[in-house]
């Protein structure tokens, strides 16, 4: 797995390329932690080249969810394939994590939802 990290205006974008599994989830979790520590306002996760995800990868998102909400950080995932989206749906996480189709939709959502929590 590779990560591509870039900033566009007030959006911190982490692109995941490859498989997010038990052997690679720690690297992604570290990148997410760094973005939260750096007080990024909007963290967008580009899943368009995410080939595979298992529970440790999903756990990296869920374990940081409350931290993001507490710090008023918008965490938005976008561009995931239907197979990967179904994994989130099976777990009921599509109701708790914001998932958008495109980067543009993710940016619009994050801007509109600034300072409101998706859990509320």
């Amino acid at each position, binding site marked *: 797995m590779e990560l591509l990290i870039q900033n566009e205006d007030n959006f911190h974008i982490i692109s995941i390329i490859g498989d997010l*599994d038990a*052997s690679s989830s720690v690297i992604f979790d570290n990148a997410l932690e760094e973005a939260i520590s750096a007080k990024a306002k909007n963290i967008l996760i580009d899943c368009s080249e995410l080939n595979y995800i*298992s*529970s440790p990868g999903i756990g990296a998102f*869920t374990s940081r*969810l409350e931290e993001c909400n507490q710090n008023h950080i918008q965490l938005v995932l976008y561009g995931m394939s239907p*197979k990967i989206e179904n994994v989130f749906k099976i*777990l009921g996480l599509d109701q708790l994590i914001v998932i958008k189709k495109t980067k543009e939709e993710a940016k619009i959502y994050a801007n509109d939802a600034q300072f409101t929590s998706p859990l509320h």
Partner: protein
Amino acid sequence: MMHSLQVPCTKENLKEIRYFVENALNRYEISAEDVYFIKLAIDEICANLIIHAHHCNHEDLIEVKIKNEGDTFIFEIHDQSNDNFNLLEYKVPDIQQIITNKKSGSMGLILVKKIMDEIELERCEGHNICRLYKSIPQANR
């Protein structure tokens, strides 16, 4: 036909296990979505064993066997450990509790239980077999 793969208990080998499962299932004209979810369930069981029962000890081995009997696929995961965790008895918490307690391992077990039709555990003198059953009728392939 039986397919079999044995690898050392390291997290890096999970990718090889997934590759093996995908290749084996692709011989049966199963949909890409079914292949993905089966691969995920096997990965979750193997990751759980490699990390928690074997502590990623590369000297320990884990073996995955795949058999096909009519519409049913049987996946066996063999290992040798004294881990007493019983996933059949484990009561999975709800997703909000998992998020609050930051226990992603429980999500893996939810996925396995939702994806597979039946799970069996067999233990005999330190040799463990986790057997997973999945029915995929030929008409649905």
